[in-house]
């Protein structure tokens, strides 16, 4: 290496670094110049018909997490013609850049579910930086209220709403968790309908209650399922356990707690026409409550009682849903997998679905009666 070229190289490198340092403004934004958006709420606008009201829940970082008692949030609300516009204006309401990479909660108002749900969803999916594993929920009265609720037991840096859904916190079968991608997939697919959880707050906004759900289908008012039905749906579709049935029998009332559940279903067809849906359900559980003493010898009898009870409930759920021509569990999808595709598959199914009888085979296996007899 000649000495001359060495000096020249050093000079050139310095110049290069200089230039590039100036360019480094692109994309370089320190973390304390960003604000994380934790949740978005979409409501129909109160002032103008057809417009949206957007609520953003921002999480404010705290210097020392151990000293903070309550989490700090900031809420931004704005109305706009479409979601994008509202968010752009909201960016001017704050001094830092809004960072959507951590948006985990999307709340949609119930009123929007009938006609506008696809538009709403479209925005969220199209933005590449928003997570597709955000949870979608339906707000009972107003998405803004739901987002603004700050339960007392909340920690400084994590959101309690997230914990409802991600099953690190509570794992109850009354809570349906719907990811954004799942929602989108099920909305567009033929043969299955998406289910969203309903989130409501109590009167003073200090508690969040999630135990119902809604089946959504474009073009018709959404069908709300009560807690009971939500539970059935969850156990059938997602194999979730941890709930109980009350059985009333002549002498005693016993409550059975279901520990494990396994569901298998099949669409029975005859020459390409669906004739019945057969479901096989295996449950294991134990007896939680009883007002009289029980003996272990009668477990077989209790099994039978439980089976009847369970069958009754599930049949009720399935027929109710069927009457509304909704299919949250995905029987239609199963039907489609059984035959090679052609144009008529879905039409045949749609015609036949409402009349299909259900053939349930329930088997309950009670393991014990708890700690006492």
């Amino acid at each position, binding site marked *: 290496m000649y000495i001359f070229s060495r000096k020249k190289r050093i000079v050139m490198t310095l110049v290069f670094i200089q230039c590039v340092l100036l360019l480094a403004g692109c994309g370089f934004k320190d973390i304390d110049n960003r604000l994380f958006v934790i949740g978005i709420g979409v409501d129909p606008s109160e002032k103008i018909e057809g417009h949206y009201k957007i609520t953003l829940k921002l999480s404010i970082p705290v210097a020392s997490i151990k000293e903070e008692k309550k989490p700090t949030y900031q809420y931004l609300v704005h109305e706009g013609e479409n979601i994008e516009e509202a968010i752009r204006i909201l960016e001017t309401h704050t001094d830092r850049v809004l960072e959507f990479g951590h948006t985990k909660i999307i709340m949609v108002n119930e009123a929007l579910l009938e006609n506008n749900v696809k538009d709403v969803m479209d925005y969220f999916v199209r933005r590449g930086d928003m997570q597709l594993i955000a949870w979608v929920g339906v707000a009972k009265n107003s998405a803004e209220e739901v987002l603004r609720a700050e339960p007392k037991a909340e920690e400084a840096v994590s959101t309690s709403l997230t914990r409802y859904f991600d099953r690190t916190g509570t794992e109850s079968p009354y809570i349906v968790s719907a990811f954004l*991608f799942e929602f989108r997939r099920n909305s567009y697919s033929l043969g299955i309908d998406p289910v969203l959880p309903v989130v409501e707050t109590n009167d003073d906004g200090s508690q969040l209650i999630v135990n119902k759900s809604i089946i959504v289908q474009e073009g018709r008012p959404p069908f709300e399922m009560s807690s009971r039905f939500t539970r059935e749906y969850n156990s059938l579709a997602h194999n979730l356990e941890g709930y109980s049935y009350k059985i009333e029998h002549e002498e005693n009332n016993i409550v059975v707690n279901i520990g494990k559940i396994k569901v298998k279903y099949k669409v029975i067809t005859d020459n390409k026409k669906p004739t019945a849906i057969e479901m096989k359900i295996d449950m294991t559980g134990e007896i939680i409550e009883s007002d009289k003493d029980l003996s272990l010898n009668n477990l077989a009898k209790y099994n039978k009682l439980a089976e009847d009870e369970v069958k009754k409930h599930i049949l009720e759920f399935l027929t109710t849903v069927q009457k509304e021509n909704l299919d949250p569990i995905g029987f239609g*999808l199963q039907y489609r997998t059984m035959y090679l595709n052609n144009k008529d598959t879905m039409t045949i199914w749609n015609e036949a679905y409402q009349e299909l009888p259900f053939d349930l085979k329930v088997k309950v296996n009670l393991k014990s009666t708890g700690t006492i007899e």
Partner: protein
Amino acid sequence: MYYLIFVTMVTNIIATVPRILVIESKKGVIFSMIAALLIGVVLTYFVIQLFNKFSGQSFPNILKKYSPRWFYVPVILYFAISWFIAGIITLFTYVFLFTTFVSIETSLVITTLAFVIIVSFGMLMKSESVLHTVEIVFLLLLPVILFLFVKIMTDENLNWGFVQVAMMNINTTPSYMSFSAASYLFIGVVNIVIFNSFFKDKLKFGFKQVTIIGTVGAVVLFITYFVPIGFNGFEQIEHLNFPWVSTSDSVRMKFGVIERVIFIFVIIFLGISFLSLLIHWHVSLKLLESIFHFKKLKWKKKNLTSYFFVILFCGISLFLVTRIDEFELFKYASIFYNILPLFYFILFLSLFVAKRRAKL
């Protein structure tokens, strides 16, 4: 030797290939995938056999020795340009992907510049070092890739029902576009044109290798096509621009430090596309060097031909990145894939000619 093939395969899982496949999803993609699988393996076999006859020499050398100038200059030129375009497609796909998903504010030029700087350093290395680099990086990334795949495939949200629905579409006729796109996966072997100079002994390509490549290819194809469907549903998947990235965004690592799997995916893909880009441009550079050798460009006893080409490549890519948008990229990529079989044909033809002349 396997690395060349595998890297190209894995790269193209994420690149443009799935998009084409799913667009044709209603038109008999499965058949064309199977056909491409078979033909790809067969072609690989032939290419290796032909090169075995000339072990230890690289393609330009072979052509120079055995064919007249008017023949080999356009052939090599054509190859060099094809390789360059292949590299550019990978580069642009990745840059667009990164910009869309990870950081919207970063300008395309900066990201391209980063790539181009490192790749230009890599292009000027000896070919052997390129092979070693590919080996090491691939080995480093492989466990993560496997982990990713396993994680994606065992996720409970992957609804196999959709996959089955897709499979039920097997009774429709194949289309050419999907066939050529699927066969792109197997094109990695033709990188051997330059690297053949290192394979001094004849490469064994017997039954065992065929099976290995065939199985891996089949598995990769299956994963490429079907898994995104399981996550995204059959109907809507045509509308996804980057099906695989959206798929990986749908998986959640509940207890991991990085919660969104998409980032792991994007970073891994960065490594892989970098490798692919390196190989392609290196091959292209070497091919160009063998035909053009500017004796005039001398500076302090070093011949600057290679630098000239490197700067040319950088310039073209930086220029184009601001001009092309996603749709055009997709269009050009499909055209490129459609022309590929011609490429194979010319390769065989030239090798055949050379073989005959060598015997003479």
